């Protein structure tokens, strides 16, 4: 099952490499990874998505917790949560396709953030599924470049991940 794990950790050199190293060392997958400082600049929040059965996820969480730099973490998929990913996508948009691409982008609530006479750059936010769906909907339109941020997430309701 796909999981979204959010980790609060010391914003220190080496901390990120320890998290990433853990995954390769123990043969766990990382599907996406995003990391940035929080409102407290000494803390970073890292969010990663991975897949595995319950046993594997339990081990991943235990091993992440063991890292000295990791202060706290949560498996967001265990409860209600909000998941967002941002994508910037450059597509060919000429002739009749130009209008069609714009129409599809509108349906997905995408924003055209840059244009040239032959292409659009579209910005899209949402769940990873929605971004995948957008790419699928563009079938037939040549995609020139895709930049996705990876998933970020937060629990719904009163629950917070903080020290």
């Amino acid at each position: 099952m796909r999981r979204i794990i959010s980790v609060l950790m010391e914003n220190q050199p080496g901390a990120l490499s320890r998290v990433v190293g853990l995954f390769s060392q123990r043969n766990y997958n990382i599907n996406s990874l995003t990391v940035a400082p929080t409102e407290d600049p000494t803390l970073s929040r890292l969010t990663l998505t991975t897949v595995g059965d319950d046993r594997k996820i339990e081990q991943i969480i235990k091993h992440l917790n063991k890292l000295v730099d990791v202060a706290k973490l949560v498996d967001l998929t265990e409860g209600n949560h909000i998941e967002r990913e941002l994508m910037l996508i450059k597509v060919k948009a000429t002739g009749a396709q130009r209008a069609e691409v714009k129409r599809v982008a509108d349906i997905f609530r995408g924003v055209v953030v840059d244009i040239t006479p032959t292409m659009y750059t579209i910005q899209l936010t949402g769940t990873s599924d929605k971004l995948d769906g957008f790419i699928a909907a563009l079938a037939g339109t040549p995609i020139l470049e895709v930049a996705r941020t990876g998933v970020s997430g937060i629990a719904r309701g009163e629950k917070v991940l903080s020290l």
Partner: protein
Amino acid sequence: MALLSGGEMLLRALHDEGVEFIFGYPGGAALHIYDAIFRQDKVEHILVRHEQAATHAADGYTRATGKPGVVLVTSGPGATNAITGIATAFMDSIAMIVISGQVARESLGSDAFQETDMIGVSRPIVKHSFMVQNPQDIPEIIKKAFYIATTGRPGPVVIDIPKDVTDPNVKFEYSYPETVKIRSYSPPAKGHSGQIKKAVDILLSAKRPIIYAGGGVIQGEGSELLTQMARKLGYPVTNTLMGLGAFPATDKQFVGMLGMHGTYEANMTMHESDVILAIGARFDDRVTNSDVKKFCPDATILHVDIDPASISKTVTAHVPIVGPVVPVLKEMLELVEAGKSKIDAAALKVWWERINHWRTRDSLKVVLADNDVIKPQQVIQALYEVTQGDAYVTSDVGQHQMFAAQYYHFDKPRRWINSGGLGTMGFGLPAAMGVQLAFPSATVACVTGEGSIQMNIQELATCKQCSLPVKIVNLNNKALGMVKQWQDMQYGGRHSHSTYADSLPDFVKLAEAYGHVGIKIEKLSELKSKLQQAFAMKDKLVFIDVVVDPEEHVYPMAIRGGGMNEMFLSKTERT
């Protein structure tokens, strides 16, 4: 407040932390530190002859004393030579501080002379690591490093120090922090009382119980409490290779070591049990055998460990308890005392009858050779007698290691010092140096093989320089015996690169060349007297080269893919 350079601060901090010895080897990036060592007399530096030996010596020191050993190496090759020893300590959860010199800050990342990314290279085999960015941070980093290495599940910590950080000309105010707090690191202080209660209830209602104790009991100083509790319960106890000495081997409740080369009775008792109390043990594949589905089919598993990641990793625990052994055992002991009457004495009696029946199989019986040929097991038996079971025994890796584990009966914790998790050949002699330094008047025996000893033989020179009277007991079977045994059993006897009888050194002469005493023993009839003679030389290192039967195999041996009840018992018998 004193003004000190980075190098001086490092030495002062180590002294303030109570460090007696640094095991090390100098080189460019560490020279400022070496100069600081020269100009003080509080911390003693032991010059090894290879950085790997420094790590094993520090490791042996930790295992024997419970205090973290300290290593100092230079950058590049010095640091990479230390890697095997760091990995060895990591696998066995041994506290160790490894300080590595590094190129100056401005040269970092430039492929400078002797630059290796030590933090990167060591990352998967350390508990934590620090790169020192500023000299002022040294006292706090040292404090944190010792705290992290020694608390929770212990492990090695690397501190990488760029050369300019220890510049003798740049001085700072020094003060050593009294306490340390790391907000992202809080090892558990006690176990969950509800879980403990649940575990004890199950334990007391068991009909076929066994206590399976590992190295964590020794590391966590829980041996005494464990012994008390086991005696109160009257249950059988088995120790892992790492746990030997956690419960006294000569106690009648002890059924021997379990696992791949465990006794028949230990493995049978495990397999047939209905309740297993695992404590400070991690269900390693050398214990469970390769197919965990066949592992102890009827057993309810109560698992106490300080590391949650060790619980339900391979074998699912029915009652997990995360916590340090001492507070957990204290709580358990109280509950056991209060609930003692619940023990099913009749069932226990039947259980012991079965165990005693398994014991009659006498799985460690030595089949004697004729013609005065020495069986390797007999050497350990003689060693046990000559040292009256009171030696510190370090070992290398191979058949000799298993024989030592099986035939030397350890009654006390911290006496059996071996590389269990990584299985590092070359560990024994340097580890013995660390032990001997910690306990100068103790008897320290290094049980080794002619293969393993040659992996760190150069340390004979360190022993000479530091007058370390280690007794090296070389079970010389003229082969990489354990490899050869596997080739006998699984590869049709094709001894691919496991023999070298025609190119072995004369170990007696070799020992003499290093300024030590060498003794060769070839006949069973002279085994004990010559061993006695060697161990009587209290202040000398004696290299005892014992020629043993090269055909001997280690038994029992778990049958791959089987349960714990499936073992080869000799070359011709199996369960």
